[in-house]
């Protein structure tokens, strides 16, 4: 069978992205137009501004993805788009554009789950990786531990009951004056700090060994900062950053290893923007190698939001016969593994 080329579009948050992927594994192009410089002015993503910027940029981004791949729209077999979860206004731009494109070009349309895309970024990075394997997805909007049972088949093991890991990073970064986005800044500052300086809590969730909770940790950091300020004690921000990060990473590693032990797999995958965090990667490397488990993780550019991962996920949906019609809508709270 000839190769399947998919043009994929992603606009669920503040990245306008398009890519062309062949057979779910080979990246022919990967264009990302980030709005981070704009949202930094507001200390976080402003949904209305993100939606407006997507609308302005999407044609150029899609056109560049095709031209970088040396293709025209006529050469692609399907158009794929993220339809959830994410910011509804932002998702609607990509979904509406993709539907217009697919309709006018007479191409099949495939809606893709954003988190499934993050998982599939691993297929682009690691040609030999195949299901089943457990995977931890950590990003600005999501913290989910899932088992990838087969292509397009997922079982959710656990997720955050409150803040995502990425949100906790952003909030703590703001509290110690690092600004937005918090993840990379805390990652960098932690190098200079002592991760055992402050004993922040590692939360457990009653009734579920795999679920996460980060709001208590965030509050503990804020309380610590307050009590230092009240007592006039010097705040060593590098120690706060390192100790906070260690508390997040410890919980993520612990729950992930429980999942590995329960399933008995010898492979584990990381995905999502926070998976670009160097300390998190190092901790997973150590925990996996101690158990003889092979760790898979996408390169940083495939960890953060991109459309290539959507093109990979869409390929397996395409093979499974998934096609969406022109009534496809944005689904801001779409669940992992849910099919419409």
């Amino acid at each position, binding site marked *: 069978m000839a190769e399947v080329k998919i043009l994929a579009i992603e606009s669920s948050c503040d990245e306008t992205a398009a890519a062309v992927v062949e057979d779910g594994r080979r990246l022919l192009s990967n264009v990302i137009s980030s709005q981070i410089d704009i949202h930094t002015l507001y200390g976080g993503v402003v949904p209305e501004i993100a939606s407006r910027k997507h609308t302005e940029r999407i044609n150029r981004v899609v*056109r560049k993805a095709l031209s970088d791949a040396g293709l025209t729209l006529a050469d692609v077999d399907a158009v794929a788009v993220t339809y959830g979860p994410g910011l509804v206004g932002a998702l609607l731009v990509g979904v509406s554009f993709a539907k217009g494109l697919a309709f006018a070009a007479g191409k099949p349309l495939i809606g893709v789950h954003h988190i499934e895309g993050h998982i599939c970024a691993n297929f682009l990075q690691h040609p030999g990786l195949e299901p089943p394997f457990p995977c931890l997805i950590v990003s600005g909007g999501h913290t989910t531990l899932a088992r990838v049972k087969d292509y397009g088949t997922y079982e959710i093991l656990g997720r955050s009951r409150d803040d995502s890991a990425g949100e906790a990073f952003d909030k703590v970064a703001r509290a110690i004056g690092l600004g937005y986005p918090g993840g990379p800044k805390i990652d960098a500052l932690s190098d200079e700090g002592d991760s055992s300086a402050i004993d922040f809590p590692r939360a457990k969730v009653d009734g579920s060994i795999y679920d996460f909770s980060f709001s208590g940790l965030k509050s503990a950091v804020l309380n610590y900062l307050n009590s230092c300020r009240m007592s006039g004690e010097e705040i060593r921000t590098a120690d706060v950053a390192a100790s906070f990060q260690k508390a997040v990473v410890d919980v993520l590693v612990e729950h992930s290893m429980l999942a590995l032990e329960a399933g008995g797999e010898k492979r584990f995958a990381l995905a999502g923007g926070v998976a670009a965090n160097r300390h998190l990667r190092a901790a997973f490397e150590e925990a996996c190698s101690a158990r003889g488990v092979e760790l898979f993780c996408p390169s940083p550019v495939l960890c953060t939001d991109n459309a290539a991962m959507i093109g990979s996920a869409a390929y397996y949906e395409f093979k499974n016969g998934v096609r969406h019609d022109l009534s496809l809508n944005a689904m801001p709270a779409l669940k992992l593994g849910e099919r419409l």
Partner: protein
Amino acid sequence: MKLIALDSSGNVAAVAIFADGRILGEYRIDHKTTHSQTLLPMLSELCGRVDFAPAEADAIAVASGPGSFTGLRIGAAAAKGMAEALGIGILPVPTLEALCYCADEWKGVICPLLDARRSQVYSGIYRFSEEGSLQTLVPGEALPLGEQLERLEAYPEECLFLGDGSDAYRGALEERFGNKLHIARPHRRYQSAAAVCMRAGELGRGAIIKAEDFAPEYLRRSQAEREREERLKGEQA
């Protein structure tokens, strides 16, 4: 000129196909704001009914604002996607101007009112000339209804109101105009893709722009931008 026309700027979702001065078909619904789910299925069905292949279109005409931010973007993004696939441009049609074409035989001034929430309307003041071309007397903007009514006092002719703002502010309009109040009847009061076609035909090929250069004219910045500006002003003062 052949056009595919879209209007999803308000409660109405509408699509039409225009070919050399004729409206080959229009599909228009005023039922729930689920435009993302309805707009393109309606267009697809309409194209089938009138044997129109999207590739025949010279441009995509789209209501370019003002209106619901999300509604405008659903139409804009769909138009941009179609234009990209077909290698054609977009013909932006200001929503308030298109609305006037619902009442293009009115001899006085026309004042479309779109409910802009926050105690404001999106509105402009227009008139059709003797020759039938649309003249802009006051360009569209977001403002309190009272300010627009004051501006209308400069025009002695009778005024026709259009748009969902004439429903939202009916009480205030009745109070002001009494039995001199003219509001278009429901079949001509709201957005229509046929009216977008008529305005687009008038604007002509010269108004077509590149798909990548098109963005809606919201006539209002985001809340975050407005608040940030206020804060910066406060800090300077």
